[in-house]
């Protein structure tokens, strides 16, 4: 799976779960200020991504530092690559 594919699948999963328009999902989009998501949504986002990519995120403290969409893309790419390695 390429990084672009990971980004595309991440965006699609998030858009579906949180009923967002794909056009809103630009890399610089802030989860809180631009997408209107909060800490409860973050909990569900973890589950959605775990199921989408077959990875384990759980209560990884790194997830708490994610502020914008590009942060999440990087996190999932790293996680996916670590899983494959």
């Amino acid at each position: 799976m390429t990084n672009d594919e990971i980004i595309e699948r991440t965006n699609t999963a998030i858009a579906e779960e949180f009923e967002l328009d794909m056009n809103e999902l630009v890399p610089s989009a802030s989860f809180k200020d631009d997408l209107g998501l909060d800490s409860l949504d973050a909990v569900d986002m973890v589950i959605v991504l775990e199921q989408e990519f077959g990875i384990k995120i759980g209560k990884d403290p790194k997830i708490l530092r994610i502020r914008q969409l590009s942060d999440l893309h990087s996190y999932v790419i790293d996680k996916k690559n670590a899983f494959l390695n």
Partner: protein
Amino acid sequence: MQLRRVVITGLGAVSPFGQGAERLFQALVDGESAVRYIAELEKIQGLGPHVAGLVQGIDIKDIPRKIRRTMSPMSVYALLASQEALDQALVDQDLRTGGRLGIALGSTVGSVGTMEDFFEDFLQNRSIEGIKSMLFFKIMGHSCAANVAQTLGIAGRTLAPSAACATSCQAVGLGYEAIALGKQDLMLCGGADEFHPLTAATFDIIQAASTQYNDRPQCTPRPFDRDRDGIVCSEGAGLLLLESLDSARARGADILAEISGFASTSDTSSIANPDPEPVRLCMELALAEAGLNAADIDYVNAHATGTVQGDEAESRAIGDLFGAHTPVSSLKGHMGHAMAASGALELIACVKMLCTGQIIPTRNLDNPAVGCSAVALPRQIENKDLQTIIKNNFALGGVNCAIVLRRFFE
């Protein structure tokens, strides 16, 4: 202590007939049935009833996701009905959020469908790792009340009585008492429930569900009828805005009716089978609080669900107290039994009957049963100058409620 007078200034309904109190009442006036064959029920092994009255025509996407995410269908119904009641009463934003408005809204249980989602995963994997964050908010006992209060910014008390089928009249009673005592100026009161096969199964297991009309859904339930065979479950939400008379006057609100009596008693003779005597006592207490005699009541809106035992016990109690001439009807023949919403939906219809001077007859009452014949059972709409109505609402567990409505006068 001087108790305050309590009036009704807003109505809101989501019923198996659709959205709106007006839609509900028009369907009742037109004698419609909301009961339909539900194919899903026939696939459940051992389940007798294959009919139900399900809410139609609601698009939950009309509610923003951020608000809807903590809501199961019953909270969606409750929110829509609450907004309708507050809009009708012209309650502005400041009044909604300033603390003078509280809410008393209950359901029989939390969302069974959501519990099913949880256990489907949990029992298979013995894991909670796939459980999303919103689950608890949908299954907690006060889910409807909390969701509505959060969404509308209701800052007064949040009460969530749960007394099975008597829930919403208890909620109205709690709201009435809170206002009468001066604790709140306005209370949004009622009940909500969503259909799940477990609800129908509950009544089927205790042999109280209608099972003989699966091929003729609109012929059941049949309150007071010779050929009645039990309850038909339905769903929805009914909300009434109660307000102190002083508050309503100060706002220039349109007053729809006055609540002048409420009583709730326990029938400890059985957890499942109603006894006429406690039912009569409950109605007597409500009348006494209203300062009325039985002869003053123009119409009795019965709880009558269409069960063999329940309808007979209630009609005996009504006959003992009101005699054979006061008109009595049940609205469950039209819309089934909306569980925690039933009392409030029917009370809304009572307010409409009071305002329009029409008594809605019992649908599917073709041959009044001998055991129910002690009371007057209208067979068609009666036009009458209605001044006072008593509304009954009972529940498994031996919970009885009665509310006295009267036309408002200075």
